[in-house]
């Protein structure tokens, strides 16, 4: 698309949103009706195809649309409350779903009627996600699922889940997985809070006992689960690391504000470190911007892993430095009470929380160590780690 085309498309889109707003008065309409209408008008996620909430436009135009709705004071779909749904489940359903699945799940996902969580990791399958042992066995038109999942953010408020389970233990581990869309209110789904180092429980353990998932909620072919899950994970890494906010929108912005508010605490060594972090964060913002321009038409590949690697390092260093900068004040913590946060905000609450929560950034969505493997093998083409599990049926693997 040339710059002239982009301008024309941008103007058409602006008009389209203006027309929609003229026809739909958000001050009198029910919030949900308004959001559904916005979806049906193709103004939900403009990069999605027509008929599924979009207009088939480059992703870059979404910012303009969101800004125009926000400027009109229109209600949004509370994207922070459904990060997994919007950032991971939706693109995967779009890529691998049948027309019926897209029809059924994408609209309530976007409007926030259905919150999604991710049933991937298990106690025995973390970095080695393909080793999952949760079993799904076919029984008539259903799959019966048994197993235990862990690190499940938001499972306690989710209506739906993306689920990876083993459908064939007789073949090599990557080949025996399938991917499902699981109803969290199905009998046999037991969600228990998992308290974290922050004192809160945003995560859960999820026990699945004879949970029935209809075959119509299998995403992709039987045995194709690893491929589908990889698409989800690539989206996840972009969602976590890709940012998209403006300058000083992340942890370094919080640190910069603390620096400005506390002239008495400034030191020369700290100033150099602050400026290095500020530069790193600004460069990460530019890198994310460039990645999104590259992605304007395509889907995220393993390159997004580099963004997430950088994001985690900066968040951890900046939040650690902020505590140090606060000195005596940094010795206090706001609240260790066990809570269920409504949404997770890496840069929210207080400095102590931010420092502790940032520790998760290099673990969730692929540890930094696994991401370095992904980059070196799948981007740089270096040899894979020597494996002891190739060509062996999952059931025969040493445990």
């Amino acid at each position, binding site marked *: 698309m040339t*710059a002239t085309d982009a301008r024309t498309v941008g103007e058409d889109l602006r008009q389209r949103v203006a027309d929609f707003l003229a026809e739909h008065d958000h001050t009198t309409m029910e919030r949900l009706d308004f959001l559904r209408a916005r979806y049906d008008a193709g103004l939900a996620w403009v990069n999605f195809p027509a008929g599924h909430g979009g207009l088939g436009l480059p992703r870059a135009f979404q910012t303009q649309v969101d800004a125009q709705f926000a400027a009109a004071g229109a209600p949004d779909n509370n994207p922070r409350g459904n990060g997994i749904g919007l950032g991971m489940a939706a693109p995967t359903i779009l890529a691998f779903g049948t027309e019926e699945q897209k029809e059924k799940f994408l609209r309530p996902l976007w409007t926030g009627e259905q919150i999604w969580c991710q049933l991937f990791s298990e106690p025995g399958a973390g970095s080695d996600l393909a080793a999952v042992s949760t079993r799904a066995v076919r029984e008539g038109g259903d799959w019966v699922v048994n197993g235990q999942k862990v690190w499940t953010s938001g499972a306690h408020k989710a209506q739906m889940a993306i689920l990876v389970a083993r459908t064939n233990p007789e073949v090599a581990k990557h080949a025996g997985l399938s991917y499902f869309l699981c109803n969290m209110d199905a009998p046999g789904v037991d969600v228990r809070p998992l308290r974290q180092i922050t004192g809160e429980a945003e995560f859960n353990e999820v026990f699945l006992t004879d949970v029935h998932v209809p075959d119509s909620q299998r995403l992709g072919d039987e045995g194709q689960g690893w491929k589908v899950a990889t698409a989800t994970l690539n989206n996840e890494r972009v969602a976590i690391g890709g940012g998209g906010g403006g300058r000083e929108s992340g942890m370094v912005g919080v640190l910069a504000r603390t620096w400005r508010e506390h002239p008495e605490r400034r030191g020369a060594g700290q100033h150099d470190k602050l400026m290095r972090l500020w530069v790193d964060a600004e460069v990460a913002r530019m890198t994310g911007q460039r990645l999104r321009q590259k992605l304007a038409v395509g889907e995220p590949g393993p390159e997004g892993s580099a963004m997430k690697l950088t994001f985690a390092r900066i968040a951890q260093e900046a939040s650690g430095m902020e505590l140090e900068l606060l000195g005596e004040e940094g010795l206090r913590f706001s609240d260790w009470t066990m809570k269920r946060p409504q949404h997770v905000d890496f840069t929210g609450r207080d400095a102590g929380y931010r420092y502790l929560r940032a520790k998760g950034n290099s673990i969730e969505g692929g540890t930094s160590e696994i991401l370095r493997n992904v980059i070196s093998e799948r981007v740089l083409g270096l040899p894979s780690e020597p494996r002891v599990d190739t060509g062996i049926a999952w059931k025969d693997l040493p445990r």
Partner: protein
Amino acid sequence: MSLNLLYTDVEDDLRSSVRDLVAARSEPNTVLGIYDGDRSVVDPLWRAIAGDLGLAGLLIPEERGGAGASAREAAVVLEELGRSVAPVPFLTSSVVATTVLLAAAPGGAADELLAGLAAGERTAALVLPLSAGPGEESPAFSAEEGRISGSARSVAGAIEADVLLVPVATAGGTAVYAVAAADARIEPVVSLDMTRQLADVTLEGVAGQELLGAGEGGDAVRRGLEVGAALLTSEQYGVAQWCLTTTIAYLKDRRQFGRVVGGYQALKHRLADLYAAVESAGAAARYAAAATADEDPETVVATAVAQSFCSDVAVKAAEEAVQLHGGIGMTWEHPAHLYLKRAKADQIALGTPAAHRARLAELVDLPAPAPVG
């Protein structure tokens, strides 16, 4: 709409022509000869780039005889020149000196020189130490009745230049004079990076022509250094890219303990980190070039950010290239050291990363601590 950080088709074509030309005329082995005093590669290569490809006039508007391109295209050229450590004065003449001259109003004395530069017939150099960054441009020359005297150490591009742009201190500010290189004492110095060899320049009562008066010369010089600093980061990105790709290729080939050494996780993880850094440097350099081309109000911040970041990434990439090549990386024969020397010199050139961070701190309201006592 935000800045376009990708490459246009025209820019891709430009890259191919520069890459082909440099590959045909400037192998690392021929560049290496410079360290032993053989500079025969320089003139033909520079004539081909400046004249045959017509790249010396990229930043000069068409109505002043140039190609009327922008900082984006010049940055692509610099990426390729960095990737090949090409020993040509493109940065010093076609970017820094040219930007200084472009501040002169059309119709004046600078026009003839600009036309000569655009045609690739003339080569110019700004007489300041290569280490001077934006804001560090205090002139070391004075003029008395049109005769200029003074000296500057470690000037880049002076050896190749036929005309020197001399910042001269006057009562009203900095003026810029043109002086024939033949009238100056230009003493080449043994340089850390011989692919951009420096010289000490001395003028003893030499006749000069005033191109920019006291009211405008200081701003013009500063602008030259700003644009130079912004686009140097693209050269640094090119240097870093060569180091990364060459090292990856070597580690896929080199075997020890019966395995390709690139399969060892300790090395894979270092390369993954380096890849992330080099990709980021590419975005920062592209951002600085695009902002410069658009005269975006954020250009000064973007330049300081890119300088701070890319300078260190290029050095890191070159240091990793030497280390991860093992014994061969330490040899004169292997080109890695050409890149290490260029990267280290580039880090200091046009303001150190620390100087750019200090500048940035003021620009973005993150003041340094008040001095003690």
